């Protein structure tokens, strides 16, 4: 009986060689026996190596089986077995069909193979060979450890990548929130992507005579949603440069064409386009002198509270999304003129707030609860209203998972 020697590492190189982990990384040197060895020899080896869970058996250096410590010892401890089998070949209690893998096998294939092979490959371990010759054994626990490490490293890599994407997405939004704070002191915006990056975005721009605002929810969330926000937002930016910011309907139309062209969403008879994505959005232009809000909505809704009035006015946009294969290239969203007064409160949200499941019956938050929060806190500053909305939403969500990205915007018309 000898102990296997691992082949020496290649000479040091100035270039670090990053290798994919393989079965070799799990390979542990092991004692072994040959088919000519007797069971009493095996007993000796197991007694000497207390940690040895299994012992490979070779013939001309090639593995032919694996002796499991627990099976072997329980057999040998039976009455007279030591006397009967002690002087017989060790292949008597050997598993003739253990899992044997090449040292070069990658960890993923090895894992599938081990699981497919069943419990014994994980409990007793498996044999690792190099060019068919015994190199060592691998153990289930070590395999699990390396799989967990690989998984953690992959997750870390993906998360880091998305976290950096979030830096880019937030930078894109920052200029807008700064523009907003300059023109509207009593205003507040909540933007909470569900998964680090998200499909919601907003855009604000101050121009002569007023300011423009957009709150939009692109299809999807996470990475694909964030891609969509870049497309939609840059399309909106170009549209404002071309057309100015005081006609929300025209801007929705322009963004619709922009998305459809950029994603090749042309309803063709013979070819189905790949992308059927788009966005829901509220676009609005506030005329400072007139205190009017010109609103064009694509599947969105505006909540308005006028000072001295009891109820909440709800102004629906058109029920047509922007982009998407089935939206016409020249669809015309309606401009709705809302007369505001000093002190009027306006609230707009994406469906992440309205549709979130929660409460005792696990149903949607709904518009009614939004109205209740607005009415109960109508005299508070916008930022307090939004904070209370967020807290109420959080309580509603409770233990439920967040379903979607969340964006909402609140502002109050100033006394001049």
């Amino acid at each position, binding site marked *: 009986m000898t102990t296997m020697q691992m082949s020496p590492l290649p000479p040091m190189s100035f270039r670090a060689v990053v290798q994919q982990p393989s079965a070799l990384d799990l390979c542990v040197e092991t004692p072994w026996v040959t088919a000519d060895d007797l069971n009493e020899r095996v007993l000796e080896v197991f007694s000497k190596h207390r940690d040895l869970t299994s012992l490979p058996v070779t013939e001309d250096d090639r593995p032919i089986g694996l002796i499991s410590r627990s099976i072997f010892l329980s057999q040998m401890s039976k009455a007279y077995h030591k006397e009967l089998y002690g002087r017989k070949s060790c292949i008597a209690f050997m598993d003739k069909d253990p899992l044997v893998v090449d040292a070069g096998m990658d960890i993923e294939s090895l894992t599938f193979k081990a699981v497919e092979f069943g419990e014994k490959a994980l409990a007793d371990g498996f044999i690792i060979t190099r060019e068919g010759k015994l190199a060592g054994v691998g153990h289930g626990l070590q395999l699990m450890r390396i799989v967990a490490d690989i998984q953690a490293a992959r997750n870390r890599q993906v998360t880091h990548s998305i976290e950096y994407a979030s830096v880019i997405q937030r930078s894109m939004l920052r200029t807008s929130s700064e523009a907003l704070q300059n023109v509207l002191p009593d205003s507040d915006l909540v933007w909470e992507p569900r998964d680090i990056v998200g499909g919601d975005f907003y855009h604000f721009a101050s121009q002569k005579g007023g300011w423009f605002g957009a709150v939009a*929810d692109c299809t999807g969330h996470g990475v694909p949603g964030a891609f969509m926000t870049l497309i939609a937002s840059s399309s909106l930016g170009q549209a404002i440069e071309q057309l100015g910011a005081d006609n929300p309907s025209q801007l929705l139309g322009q963004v619709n064409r922009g998305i459809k062209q950029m994603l090749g969403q042309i309803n063709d008879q013979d070819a189905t386009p790949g992308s059927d994505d788009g966005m829901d959005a509220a676009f609005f232009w506030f005329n400072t002198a007139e205190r009017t809000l010109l609103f064009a909505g694509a599947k969105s809704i505006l909540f308005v509270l006028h000072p001295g009035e009891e109820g909440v006015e709800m102004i629906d946009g058109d029920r047509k999304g922007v982009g998407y294969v089935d939206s016409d290239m020249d669809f015309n969203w309606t401009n709705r003129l809302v007369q505001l007064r000093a002190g009027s409160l306006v609230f707009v949200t994406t469906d992440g707030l309205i549709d979130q499941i929660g409460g005792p019956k696990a149903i949607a938050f709904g518009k009614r609860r939004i109205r209740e929060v607005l009415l109960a806190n109508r005299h508070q500053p916008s930022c307090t209203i939004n904070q209370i909305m967020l807290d109420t939403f959080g309580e509603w969500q409770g233990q439920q998972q967040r379903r979607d990205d969340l964006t909402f915007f609140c502002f109050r018309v100033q006394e001049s």
Partner: protein
Amino acid sequence: MENLYIAATPSSPEVNFDFAQHHLSVRGESYPENAAAFYGDIIKSLRDYLALCTDTSISMDIALAYFNSSSTKMLFNIFEALNDAQRAGNKITVNWYHDEEDDTMLEFGQELSDDFTDITFINHAV
């Protein structure tokens, strides 16, 4: 035609299309990462089935607590297929189930029934 059954997951609904009994149902929640991939085959087998139907009474039960915007698009595609089948001479009944306090689902059902007027649409508040 073979029936279609897909078990529910936290983010995708149970789909049970019993084509033999002309009884179809979708229930649960729908926000799969790739809605087009999830619904693609479902809509295809629905369309294949409907193409074989003539003068048939077909019922579709829908009980969804939540669906995201890309699933909404897919629901529209399902309704379009049903509407086409009604026009081709079948009799389609949609049972729309929602919690009695869930205005969001109630409203969505109303929108669908406004858009697809050929289908018989029955609202069930439970």
